[in-house]
């Protein structure tokens, strides 16, 4: 679904619109100024430096050769510092840990300066600390810059704590709303078989049924 939102995959039905215009009628360049993406697939070249990779986020705005203007350089600098990457900026991507690389990818999307940032499972392969670090950074980006940040995740408990709104897809019943509303609607109880996992509405977390 996220890939369809970002126009990376054709839709199964319905209509998606950004600023009142269907995304299928956007030219690739036009859409790239509205939506930026962080995908699950690994990047092809790990030989890029952090700075080079983040700078690629400015492609929709640069000239035919990709020359960076002062505005572009400022945006890149902002993206790097807001993702706390200043000390890593001259490192090559193959020297980074998964968590650092994921932050770089978010910085690249941030540098693209779009109103919408889509992230496909940004927390996979990360340990608990780095998962929370990424999600908290995303939350602060969303709140301080008024960007719309949409991400898919299996970390339901973290999402309940951090997100403003959630979409819950379990195949049969789909829910959309603020996390506390969904808890009130008992949306999480039916998500998993109750003989294995049960949901505790008080703490907003799952308990293993023993």
């Amino acid at each position, binding site marked *: 679904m996220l890939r369809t939102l970002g126009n990376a995959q054709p839709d199964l039905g319905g209509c998606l619109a950004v600023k009142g215009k269907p995304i299928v009628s956007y030219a*690739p360049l036009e859409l790239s100024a509205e939506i930026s993406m962080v*995908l699950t697939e690994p990047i092809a070249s790990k*030989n890029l*430096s952090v700075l080079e990779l983040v700078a*690629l*986020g400015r492609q929709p705005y*640069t000239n035919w050769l990709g020359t960076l203007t002062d505005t572009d350089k400022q945006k890149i600098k902002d993206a790097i510092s807001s993702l706390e990457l200043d000390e890593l900026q001259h490192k090559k991507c193959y020297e980074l840990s998964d968590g650092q690389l994921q932050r770089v990818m978010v910085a690249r999307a941030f540098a693209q300066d779009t109103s919408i940032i889509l992230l496909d499972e940004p927390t996979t392969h990360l340990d608990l600390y780095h998962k929370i670090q990424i999600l908290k950074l995303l939350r602060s980006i969303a709140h301080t810059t008024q960007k719309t940040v949409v991400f898919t995740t299996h970390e339901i408990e973290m999402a309940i704590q951090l997100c403003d709104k959630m979409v819950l897809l379990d195949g049969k019943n789909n829910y959309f709303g603020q996390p506390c509303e969904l808890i009130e609607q008992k949306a999480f109880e039916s998500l998993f078989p109750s003989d294995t996992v049960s949901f505790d509405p008080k703490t907003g977390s799952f308990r293993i049924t023993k």
Partner: protein
Amino acid sequence: MQTPKTYRSSFVLLLTVLVIALGINISLGSVSIPFSETLHSVFGGTLDNTAWDYIIWNYRVPKAFTAILVGAGLSLSGLLMQTLFRNPLAGPFVLGISSGASLGAAFLIMGSATLSSLFGFSLVTDVSLAIVSSIGSFLVLLAVITVASKVKDTMALLIIGLMFGSISAAIVSVLSYFTDAQKLQQFVYWSFGSVGNLSWHQLGLLFVILIIGIVLGILSIKPLNALLLGENYAKSLGVNLVRSRYLIIIATGLLAGGVTAFAGPIAFIGLAVPHLTRQIFNTTEHRVLVPAVLVYGAILMLICDTIAQLPSSAEVLPINAITSILGAPVVIWLLVRKRKMVF
């Protein structure tokens, strides 16, 4: 990331090496001509020994310029392939482009015997050879791309390229079997690769083809950089994937096809030079890589040609063998030293 200033000094150094390599290449050959006399002739002076003048202007200078064009063209086409397929093993040879050109040349040289007897004149001219070889490499490239759109695995794609190469080689052997000795010899000599057979006129034609290829390559610098992230990311950065892919393929076809048509299939340069360049410049930025591979390729090809002509002997070795013998150990050494493939 180096600063632009250090890149500039690297380029100045590279261009100096290129000029030195050019000088050495022109001053050495089967006839020994004193270096001072060579310089005098090259800078517009006339020599007392008119034979030397003739050798320099009608043999050595065009040969040196052919080597420069061949090296630059093959290297750029290798770089374009490697980034397009995001595979460090890609190159004009591995993906069957050169085999396609061979197939075209084989059809023209060996298959045209019946046709030319029909028309009463030979169809094998420089221009027709160039056109047919280019068409051959384009067809193979298109076939590989068509399969590439269905197969997502890049390793599988390489194997498919090798298979297309085998098929082309097989057809060439069948053609060779049915052809007469003279035509066969003509084809075998073409397949050894040579930079020494081009007249000024042919050189001009090759120059025009390569310039078009290089311009298309320069126009695709920005999408090439985006492709370093993968196709989906490139698309999300506003790259028109279909257009860029065709732009890059046409550029590669012109560069590799054009070179192979005039100089025969020359191994190794297209694969190795982009790696050497990436190792030495330590960057993946195509604004640096594109000009750098052009100069590197030219230097390497000049050195290979200098060795191939065996200074002060009348023998000339097949350039195809020299490029591999000289180049392969260099790449192995670089990889062992850095302990990994930077791509």
